[in-house]
């Protein structure tokens, strides 16, 4: 199943300064009982978004009228913990297309890529500048340019580069997924299986 091609875009930002946001916060385990990938966006950050009675918690950034957009700006070490891909599904389903942080957990990074969600790693200093910018001016627009590996706030002349694996970049831009690639390799995989008896 290939996903939509990743196009450059410009959007406002939702800031979430908390560090070490784990996948249990992104989507609590009790919402993982579905057997289909549907409706996870509603449950995104559920226990931070709603109180016990199901009312929105006004102080939480996703409920804050000032913030909206396709970019999540998150504190260091985003996506740690469980391997649940539901976290990436929930973020995507909610409408996020890119996440900017100074550090991402490994499994989360793979899950994000496999769902057309772009994790953008910036330095701690750059993250601090971006956080301040969005706090001072919540309607700041950030341009995400994957082809040039840059995020840009034009008025402020802020322009940061980010690294991305060349293969992953191409997959995102062309809308390819790893599965199709692996399937095209089946002959090599079978050859590998036959060649292996004592492998070490």
């Amino acid at each position, binding site marked *: 199943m290939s996903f939509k091609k990743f196009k450059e875009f410009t959007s406002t930002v939702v800031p979430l300064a908390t560090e070490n946001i784990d996948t249990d916060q992104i989507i609590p385990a009790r919402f993982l*009982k579905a057997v289909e990938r549907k409706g996870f966006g509603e449950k995104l950050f559920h226990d931070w978004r709603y109180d016990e009675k199901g009312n929105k918690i006004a102080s939480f950034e996703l409920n804050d009228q000032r913030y909206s957009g396709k970019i999540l700006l998150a504190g260091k070490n985003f996506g740690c913990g469980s391997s649940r891909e539901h976290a*990436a599904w929930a973020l995507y389903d909610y409408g996020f297309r890119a996440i900017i942080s100074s550090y991402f957990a490994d499994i989360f990074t793979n*899950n994000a890529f496999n769902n057309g969600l772009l994790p953008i790693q910036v330095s701690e200093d750059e993250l601090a500048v971006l956080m301040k910018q969005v706090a001072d001016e919540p309607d700041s627009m950030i341009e995400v340019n994957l082809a040039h590996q840059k995020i840009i706030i034009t008025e402020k002349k802020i322009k940061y580069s980010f690294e991305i694996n060349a293969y992953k970049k191409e997959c995102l831009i062309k809308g390819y997924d790893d599965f199709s690639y692996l399937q095209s*390799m089946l002959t090599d995989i079978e050859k590998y299986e036959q060649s292996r008896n004592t492998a070490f």
Partner: protein
Amino acid sequence: MENNTLFDKIWDSHVVKKVAGGPNVLYIDRHYIHEVTSPVAFGNLEGRGLKVLRPEKTIATMDHNIPTENQHLPIQDLLSRNQVETLEENCKAHGIKLFDLNHDNLGIVHVIGPELGLTQPGMTVVCGDSHTSTHGALGSVAFGIGTSEVEMVFGTQCIMQSKPKKMRISINGNLNKAVTSKDIILYIISKISSSGGTGYFIEFAGNTIRNLSMEARMSLCNMSIECGARGGLIAPDQLTFEYLKGKDYSPSGEDWKKKIMEWTLLKSDPGASFDMEYSYEAADIFPMITYGTNPGMGMDITGRIPHNNADESFKKALDYMGFEAGEKLIGKPVDFVFVGSCTNGRIEDFRMFANLVKGRKKADNITAWIVPGSKSVEKEIRKEGIVEILENSGFALRQPGCSACLAMNDDKVPAGNYAVSTSNRNFEGRQGPGARTLLASPLVAAAAAVTGVITNPVELLE
């Protein structure tokens, strides 16, 4: 002349192809699945009109959603029941071996894999579950994957992964009294932080690690993910071979001899280089407990919560826990004690727990959940008479499953309550919305269970 690490040897021998500028195509020897992270993968695979390519390499169990009481009755929670039934249907349709609720081999996926000899040295092992790192204790490269990757393994027996960097963590010397491998790993994470291992695969080394039992090694490797590492592994040795000998799925006869020769080669070469090295003294490690909302927020149980005023996330964590910087945890009342999970749900964990509670009584304020990691652990608990010790002290044994580790089944800690848990995550809400988790060893859990407050187990062992 060779200077490869153990990790290099296993990883490199499983690379089918290196994609230019990209990840490796990595062949997977053993794939475990459970009810939560597999249904969408099966659905998508079928959507592509495909079948599982190598069904014999995948093994299924049910653990996250299942109740830990009355397992012979239909599951009450309809969504959970549906997920479990979906797994049954999918396994049937694709010819995958499933250990269901009626099967003697049922258990938490990371408990049964090693227990049955399904995980062996030198293998690549994956599961849609981050604690797959547990299996590294057998000398395999084992790590958690997402559901898209589960689908890739189904369809092609491969995934695409960039090779992680290599870290070695050495521990040397004799362990202090009442210190278990759980304390070792909590100590390590408190030193390098919950993100200190991100991007790395860890090899645990040193004579302290060598002297750990196989089960203790599993508890250690289990939590390597909690410092952000993809996984952790330990070179297989005589103890590993003895552990595996005669297990249901271990090789036998001529095959066994051949395998032993191969497995003996699985160690880092003397000149092997690591991208990062840490070294600690066992003498510096004491029984540990966590005070915050990530596993890196841990300390010596007799210590004081550190001050870290500048850090908003740190303050938020203490607020959630209802603790203050500078305070001691010793003597604080707790409400729940949970012994179990893929970290500490093996027979040695229950022996440890029983050894401390023997002749004492469960404190009145404590609700205790004592949950074996598998049916075979449960059987052993009964066989060894541990169940009588537990019952005489006022504890009841439950049936195997993930239980209170993740608040997905019926075992949930109520909001605001404190739980000393032998599991692996103290995240906000991990054990139920608003639940406050203190991670610790089975000995610390036992000490809390009989005194009702946080207690240094050393005092009760004297």
